């Protein structure tokens, strides 16, 4: 059997017999009834849908920021440690109040 010829014949047959474009009786009425039967969306439903859509990008941004701050902390020097900065800030006034010669 010549398969290439069979393929050509079958494709030609499909071209020669296009499918019918017949539409069932009152099909458009059926579609309109389906559309009318759908529950109307109120403002709260729209708001809820928008929130759900926004959830994924928000999670992605949160993860990115989390990863960025984590890597940033790992890369920084120990002097930039948050605990040390806090200590310096708290003791800054005490350091200033002490006279220069009081250490003697």
């Amino acid at each position, binding site marked *: 059997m010549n398969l290439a010829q069979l393929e050509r014949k*079958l494709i030609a047959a499909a071209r020669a017999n296009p*499918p*019918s474009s*017949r539409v069932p009786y009152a099909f*458009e009425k059926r579609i309109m009834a389906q559309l009318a039967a759908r529950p109307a969306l109120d403002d709260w439903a729209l708001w809820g849908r928008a929130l759900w859509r926004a959830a994924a990008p928000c999670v992605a941004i949160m993860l990115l920021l989390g990863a960025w701050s984590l890597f940033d902390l790992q890369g920084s020097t120990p002097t930039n440690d948050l605990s040390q900065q806090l200590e310096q800030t708290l003791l800054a006034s005490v350091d200033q109040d002490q006279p220069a010669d009081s250490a003697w």
Partner: protein
Amino acid sequence: MERTDAELIAAVLKGDAASFEPLVQKYSPRIFATARRYARRESEVEDIVQTIWLKAFEKLESFRGEAPFEHWLMRLAVRTCFDGLRVHQRNRETTFSELSEPEQDWLDRFVSQPDAAGENAEAASQLVARVLEQLSPSARMVITLQEIEERSVKEIAALTGWSVPLVKVRAFRARAEMRKVLSRIAKEKYL
């Protein structure tokens, strides 16, 4: 006076859902013909067309009016048909021992006298539908659009949303898949 598509669409978007009905009436024949290329059972065809129209209503806001409404609708139709093919692809594996009598006769005639087997025969188009059912969804889509509807690669890319290189790759694979199916017929029936 008959309203244009643009006027009808604008009315629907303003909340007048009834203006959608003339659009359904006008384009349903085209949509039915498209859906019948991808589904055989009439109930399945009606389900597909119904889904296309409900989607069209939902997504009407995304129609920007730069191209004719028919183009936008056909893109939606083809993509919905492709989704339908993917859903039903599990049921497509059948053997060719179930060919109907006219299909078998046509095939026998082709084997004995290839030129005598007419292309206009109903049996030939039934046979081609059966062969197409054996293909993967993307192969069936490409063969239908490129070989049967004689559309260009660019047109197929626009209709399906695939890139031009992807259409070319899928077309190449689809032809190989089709040859495989045809050789299976030859093996099952004549060897």
